[in-house]
């Protein structure tokens, strides 16, 4: 049998990406492609998990039983989405425990937006409308990402998330059309969440470190600025229907561009929050670590029980087989 050279493999990989074929877990792929995907998918998964916190903050205070049910279902979805994404990352040969370790020790990031506090009930609506709206704008193109398991996870997530944004919008609408106090609460929330939402698309294209390579690999399909502009254009008429103002005096329609112009984003704030100096960075990670640490005895108990009883006789031996690394459906880490 002829041997497959490294050159052949690179050529085959490049050709597959160029032809819009999907790369699958056991295919050969450049180390840097694998590393980029692990970093991005992990960050995305971490964002879902950390993102549960600001909204869960209001589950016990939700002002109607209907809103409470919606909020529990939404926060639950975020856990579910985190799980889909961790499982996509595991196909690249990196186990969930390793990823969680990196989250807990600050070596991997999550979306900075979740380092802002939810101060009032209206923040739950604003997160649904703006934060989920921005996330969906970012995520829809990822359904066509070159890496198969990530693309498939995103299809599922996008399908499920369509309710998230709508419930947020509906909730804000109820507040905006409610009592003066409720209206004010809604406006205040939009004032606080608008700019951080725009920052969710990442730094401007000319400063974005990873963008060009990710675009070439078709992990990413549109530039940060392109998606940000799309989001602004979508939000302006939605805000009008809500009867709320977006907190940007420079926001106006530009006939020539066919887009809305908007004011400068405070990238200093973005970088500070990213560095760990946001209002809730410490709190979010501390809670996540505490839940994980306090749950250790539960996870150990279940593993010990399984080892004792070997239920259904084919329990994959925990410990003996770190499943992610050996599972044939999954890739072998090359690094």
């Amino acid at each position, binding site marked *: 049998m002829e041997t497959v050279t490294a050159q052949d493999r690179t050529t085959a990989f490049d050709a597959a990406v160029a032809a819009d074929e999907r790369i699958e877990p056991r295919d050969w792929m450049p180390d840097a492609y694998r590393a980029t995907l692990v970093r991005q998918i992990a960050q995305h998964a971490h964002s879902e998990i950390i993102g*549960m916190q600001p909204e869960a903050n209001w589950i016990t205070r939700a002002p109607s*039983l209907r809103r409470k*049910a919606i909020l529990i279902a939404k926060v639950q979805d975020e856990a579910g989405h*985190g799980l889909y994404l961790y499982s996509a990352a595991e196909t690249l040969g990196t186990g969930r425990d390793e990823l969680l370790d990196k989250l807990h020790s600050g070596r991997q990031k999550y979306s900075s937006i979740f380092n802002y506090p939810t101060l009032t009930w209206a923040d739950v609506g604003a997160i649904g409308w703006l934060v989920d709206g921005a996330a969906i704008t970012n995520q829809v193109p990822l359904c066509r990402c070159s890496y198969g398991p990530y693309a498939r996870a995103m299809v599922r997530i996008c399908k499920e998330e369509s309710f998230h944004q709508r419930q947020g919008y509906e909730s804000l609408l109820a507040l905006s059309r409610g009592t003066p106090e*409720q209206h004010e609460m809604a406006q205040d929330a939009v004032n606080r969440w608008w700019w951080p939402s725009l920052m969710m698309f990442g730094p401007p294209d000319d400063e974005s470190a990873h963008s060009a390579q990710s675009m070439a690999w078709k992990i990413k399909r549109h530039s940060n600025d392109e998606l940000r502009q799309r989001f602004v254009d979508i939000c302006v008429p939605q805000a009008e229907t809500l009867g709320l103002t977006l907190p940007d005096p420079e926001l106006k329609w530009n006939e020539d561009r066919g887009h809305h112009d908007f004011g400068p984003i405070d990238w200093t704030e973005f970088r500070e929050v990213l560095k760990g100096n946001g209002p809730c960075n410490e709190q979010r990670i501390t809670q996540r670590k505490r839940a994980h640490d306090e749950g250790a005895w539960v996870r150990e108990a279940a593993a010990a*029980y399984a080892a004792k009883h070997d239920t259904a006789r084919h329990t994959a031996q925990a410990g003996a087989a770190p499943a992610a690394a050996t599972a044939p459906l999954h890739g072998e880490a090359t690094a």
Partner: protein
Amino acid sequence: MTAPTGTDRTAAPGTAAPVAAAPVTAATGTGRPEATSATTGTDPATTAAALALGDDALVLSHRLGEWAGHAPVLEEEVALANIALDLLGQARILLSQVGDEDELAYLREERAFRNLQLVEQPNGDFAHTIARQLYFSTYQAFLYAELARTEGPFTALAAKAVKEVDYHRDHAEQWTLRLGDGTAESHTRMQRAVDALWRYTGEMFQPVDGLTTTHGINWPALQGSWDQSIGETLRGATLTLPETPRSGAWAAGAGRQGLHTEPFGRMLAEMQHLHRSHPGATW
């Protein structure tokens, strides 16, 4: 009769008093109609029974909702939220049978709630939550199976809910086995939880009149089924069935009579504060 505890006892008519006798009053001074004014024309015993079952589900779903973001493993975030949502759904149907669900949930004072003391107990560690789930879901599974089997005001609700509840019970049993028969630490924690919550289990078998008269619930038989099932599960989990009293004279029937434990007031304060801060608002 002047001691504070004496006052309480007077307020709660003791174990012999039928649950239906306890008045259902909404908070006053909220500018909203009294919950009782919104009730449908069913008889008071049925109303009281709907409140008892509805409040159980409402309060337990609230406690489970507190786990969001704190569960020991991500898969369990999803599982606990599922159970919370099932219970909340049951609560909404039951409360709506009696009146406006939000008025009943948000505008009643602590003493007007009819839930078991068991379900209002704080989450504690995961073992306490599982023990609470085991005790309650086993009770609910047997009770709802009877309600679904018999003709009465709760047949339709129970027929739907019993499938949910069977799953809750399975979830609790699976975890009881794993915690009880897992590690030394998990065994200790699970035994502690099973023991600590035992004293709240007697109340479950205090007859709720509205269920006895309409569905013919046989409470001693219910308790027999429960005892047997719990005994088997605990033994299977290498745990010891508690032998301490399962309810003192004071506690018997307490939650069903509107007498609750201290943590419940704080739970309600948190649950109700936003709704109450905006009288008459819609959300």
